[in-house]
């Protein structure tokens, strides 16, 4: 029972509506690459449309109450706001594709610069979180499947179910209370860049990464356990054992390859969850990431900065989903057929 926010919509619709149609066939190479492009165009329209919905005139907001209509017109012209919307959208999209996301209304700092100062923080934390999730969830799932019905299996299942119901901020605050306040072992917040001092980075990054990873680790453990238990009961596994192949070879070369699909899908959906959950985690651990930028931009109604953060987040999410789909195509026997 995972909380809804941290759970892929597919998983919910699956559990809510009993299987009424066959599982979707894995897409071919072309579909895997072309679909995200179409989705990106839709997402970028949404992102741009959001800015166009804004009721406030940015020029008037920046220039203040003393601005004359001529000043406002001049600033509107400077930011290209006096052109028709479709022209603005296409211009914005093609500039964005070339790495130019416009300038902040307030600081006139290029949006891309602000974002690429903040993004490495999130990528480093999210990367570590995914790594932890794969290690913890993978090990727990395989161990539980190998000792199916045993004490370890029941322990993994119970812990995974409990972790699934915890909201991400509760995990984060709990980790701070235990490791920072009570044990005084790790800092409660702050950040050092990875390329400055990797050891210090790890001290600051480990708690937020752990907080972000546990939910996904729990999903991976559950999915992997279920599908691996199913695969281990198949005839081909018995056949491989009978042919005298080593237990390790049977597990990693045969059973795991077939069982890994659902866990990989969870991982692919986990990436946007990590980025979404990172907002709250960044706040708890006081990290200078993309979410802080979004919060600040939101407070100032800084439309280009808001659009930029949203577009970059969407792009990262789509990129990760595509990578996972490609990995699924490559790894699973069904995908290669």
């Amino acid at each position, binding site marked *: 029972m995972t909380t809804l926010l941290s759970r892929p919509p597919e998983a919910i619709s699956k559990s809510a*509506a009993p299987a009424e*149609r066959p599982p979707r066939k894995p897409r071919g190479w072309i579909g895997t690459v072309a679909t995200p492009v179409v989705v990106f165009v839709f997402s970028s329209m949404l992102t741009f449309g*959001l800015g166009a919905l804004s009721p406030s005139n940015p020029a008037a907001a920046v220039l203040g109450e003393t601005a004359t209509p001529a000043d406002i017109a001049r600033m509107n012209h400077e930011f290209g706001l006096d052109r028709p919307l479709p022209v603005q959208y296409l211009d914005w999209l093609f500039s964005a594709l070339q790495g130019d996301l416009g300038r902040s209304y307030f600081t006139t700092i290029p949006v891309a610069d602000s974002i690429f100062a903040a993004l490495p923080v999130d990528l480093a934390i999210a990367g570590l979180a995914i790594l932890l999730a794969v290690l913890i969830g993978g090990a727990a799932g395989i161990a539980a499947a190998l000792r199916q019905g045993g004490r370890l299996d029941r322990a993994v299942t119970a812990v995974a179910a409990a972790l699934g119901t915890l909201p991400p901020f509760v995990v984060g605050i709990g980790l701070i209370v235990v490791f920072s306040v009570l044990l005084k072992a790790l800092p409660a917040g702050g950040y050092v860049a990875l390329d400055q001092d990797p050891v210090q980075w790890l001290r600051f990054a480990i708690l937020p990464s752990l907080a972000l990873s546990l939910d996904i680790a729990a999903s991976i453990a559950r999915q992997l356990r279920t599908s691996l238990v199913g695969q281990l009961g198949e005839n081909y596994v018995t056949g491989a054992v009978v042919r005298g192949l080593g237990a390790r070879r049977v597990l990693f070369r045969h059973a795991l390859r077939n069982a890994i699909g659902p866990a990989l899908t969870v991982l692919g959906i986990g990436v*946007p969850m990590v980025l979404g959950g990172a907002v*709250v985690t960044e706040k708890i651990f006081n990290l200078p990431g993309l979410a802080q930028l979004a*919060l600040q931009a*939101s407070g100032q109604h800084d439309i280009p900065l808001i659009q930029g953060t949203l577009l970059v987040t969407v792009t990262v999410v789509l990129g990760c989903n595509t990578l996972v789909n490609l990995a699924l195509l490559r790894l699973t026997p069904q995908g290669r057929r």
Partner: protein
Amino acid sequence: MSTLTAARPFTKLRLPSARVAVAVLAVVAFLAVAGGAVAPHDPLLQDPDLALRGPSLAHPFGTDYLGRDVFSRLLAGTGTTVLAALESVGVGLALGVLPGLASLWLGRAVEWVLLRAVDAVMTLPFIVFAIAVTGVLGNGLTQAMVAIGVLFAPLFFRVTRAAGLSLTRAQYVEAAELFGASRWRILRTHVWGKVVPTVAVTAAQATGGALLAVSSLTFLGIGVQPPAPTWGGILASDLGFLAQQPWAPVIPAAFIMVAVAALNALADAIRPGGAR
């Protein structure tokens, strides 16, 4: 899905877990309506002499850094939190269910556009999108929850679509078409009743998710101006005083988690075809 349980989806409400869930939700609903009135203290009353006290008879959950009664703040904050969650689920239902049915009955072009739009909306992370929307449309809880509701729409869309998909080829639907029944009549009399139980389950789950989203947003300071109390806001103010009161976040967190768990249990209880 057996037709029998689909036709009577609420029989499992007599299960003990379902009864507890309904009781918890009844208390939450009561507090949402009357929380401010039954609170023992004024939730906004500051008393510097009482700041950061532990639990006592007068203040069962202690006091916060301004000496405000945490119990009263939690009760008074229930209404805002619950109303916001219901708002987002309502938006999600409105934007998801009918397009979900439309994607099945209005032809392939409509289907293609709707599916791509759903894929696009699904790439938006909940909290970041809500922050962006409040940045553009103004920092209000309604704006934030409409944003969350838009992101819930794909969920309802997919669930409705999945539940309706098998019905498009069901024999009695074909028979109704042959008799010349209009699309609208088929949807109303033959499809609607089969889709509603599934949508109800999803709505219960989504309300749990929405409660977490409201709590996350108010935790971040989105949507509500201090000193107005919300569950997430109380959690955020506790975070600054972990050194003095490391136990304090447990209380608002427990309120959130108990409500979410009750909604999940309710979803399991009303699920057609057995609680899984």
